[in-house]
């Protein structure tokens, strides 16, 4: 297997691990961090493909992903803070008001 395949495989693995982490872990902040892991996986694949094709657009998109990740975390954390203040726990099992 060559380098590109290895990296693409790694990126896929990181993404899957992140997604499964969201499904499996109960702690809200850990779930947020798993989402960051997913974004990292995507970044890796973008960079790999971009470098392979030789155009600059790949790098631009990676940069935008950084920006979006920053914004996302900047807003997600306050939301989680508000939720925690309402529910008084960081366990996701308590957040089921939207049931039914």
């Amino acid at each position, binding site marked *: 297997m060559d380098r590109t395949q290895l990296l693409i495989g790694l990126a896929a693995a990181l993404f899957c691990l992140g*997604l499964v982490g969201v499904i499996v872990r109960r702690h809200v902040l850990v779930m947020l961090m798993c989402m960051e892991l997913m974004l990292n996986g995507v970044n890796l694949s973008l960079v790999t493909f971009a470098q392979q094709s030789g155009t600059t657009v790949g790098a631009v998109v990676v940069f935008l992903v950084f920006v979006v990740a920053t914004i996302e975390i900047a807003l997600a954390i306050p939301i989680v803070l508000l939720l925690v203040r309402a529910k008084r726990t960081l366990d996701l099992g308590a957040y089921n008001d939207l*049931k*039914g």
Partner: protein
Amino acid sequence: MLTAVVLLPLLGFVLNGLFATRLRSHPLGHGFVTALGCGLPIASFALVVLGVLKLAAAGWAPLVETAYRWAQIGDASFEVAFYLDRLSAVMALVVTGVGSAIHVYSVGYMKEDEGYGRFFAYLNLFLFFMLLLVLGRSLLVLFVGWEGVGLASYLLIGFWFHDLANARAGKKAFITNRVGDAGFLLGMFVLFQAFGTLDMDRIDASFAGPVLPAVSASLVGILLFIGATGKSAQIPLHVWLPDAMAGPTPVSALIHAATMVTAGVYLVARMSGVYLHAPEASAVIAAIGVGTAFFAATIALVQTDIKKVLAYSTISQLGFMFLALGVGAYGVAIFHLVTHAFFKACLFLGAGSVIHALGGEQDLRRMGGLARRIPLTFVTFAIATAAIAGIPPLAGFFSKDEILWYAFASTRGGSPLLWFFGAATALMTAFYMFRLLWLAFLGPSRMAPEVEHHVHESPRSMTSVLVLLAVLSAFGGFIAVPHFLEPQLALPATDEHLHAWETPLLVLSVVLALAGLALAAFLYGGPSGRVDALRARFAGAHRWLSGKYFIDELYEAVIGRPLVWVSDRVFLRVGDRALLDGTLNGMAAVARGGAWVLGRVQTGSLHVYAWLVLAGLAGALLWSWRHV
């Protein structure tokens, strides 16, 4: 011109219908309604007379006037066309003439009524449809008129609709007629299928031609006759006519005596070309005609309501007309139609005069001795009674005698059996009509005292019409209608061997009429004990007759109740509730159930949602990459 004849009454209907109630409070409103309501039919009559003169001048070749084309469907074109020949001339004269007279009568009769304007509007509407019926060239126009007079009849029977019984009577009339109309429509379909046209003169001509068309004339004949039984109250669809007496008396006179009920007779006479080639149908018509005549006369023997007697008498006389049609004497049937219009209208209007004088009383047991109090009504009523009984030289004698002669001797189905029942009916007719005269006018007074005080002669508008009709009943027999119609409706050949019987039968019918008169005078002119003794001896028969043979109850039990049962059990419970509502509710329940099932996805748990994302993603990827 023919179009104008038809449209003038329609104009009266529209104007009266729109403005009559609004003008009720206006001082001139009454006069406006009267002027329009009576003037337009009289104008129509004048135009018909003009038309007949024109027809005569043209050597009696039929006048055809096409008003407009109704529809063009493929190759077939349906026009509204009017046709004036000898037969429709006779009919139109009767309709507009007697009709206008009855309109004038209504001015006096309905003067106090609240619905004065509405009444004239409906009467004019009726006249419009009746003229469509008699002047129409094609069966389609006739059928429009046919249905329209049924509508007008319904509106007028239930004129005083605040009494529910009247409304029910109107409904019964309309529905019974519709049953007959089903047969009529089928007959029209068969004719159209065979000829591609519904023009009656053309259909008759095809039948008269050298090659007979390939359609069963008897089938068409029976189907059209079914329609005629409905409209002309023959067995088995006669049940509506006695109930129709709930309407005002001018309505009974115009619609249920002189004109509408004769539409069936007109139809058969007009389609005589078909019936000449349909011996089976003609036999059926003759049998039902004489049967109805006999049957209705027996019921009339014991009726106690003055209008009901006349109603059954009408059914009986219509039976006579159909008897004549059945043996091929079409012109004679029309003759009897004309004389019947005269004397029956006179009788009904006279009855109306009596009811008016007595302030609404219609029961014969509470009348008597009116001859001195309302002499003019009595004289006209007596003349008309003598006419219907067949006493020469009044009109009824001529027409009835011709019918009986042809029933006996016609080569197209005449037989002594038909004659026998006809003669028996004639005897009964004379009897019950004189019974009516005696009970109402002669003998001691059985009226309630407060009613007796107010007995008065009717106003001029009513009595003048009575006089006119009485004169026509007296001398109308001399209008030789059958001979007038001979070129168009040939009289049937009579059996040579039976010619010897002609004079004896003539004498016999006069004897029967006088016998009826004598019997009535004997029973009702003398002390009342005689009648009571007779009733006690034949109590069972009396019960059957006054119950009208319980035909209404039979229909209710055999037809009405099963239909209601089917409607309720099958159509309502199974069809409507279980099937239709059930299906819709079932679909809604399915949707609700499906929504509940799908709603179980909303667990509120983010883990589950994320897992679903993963599952979807994996599924999509696998599916899209299966080719790779």
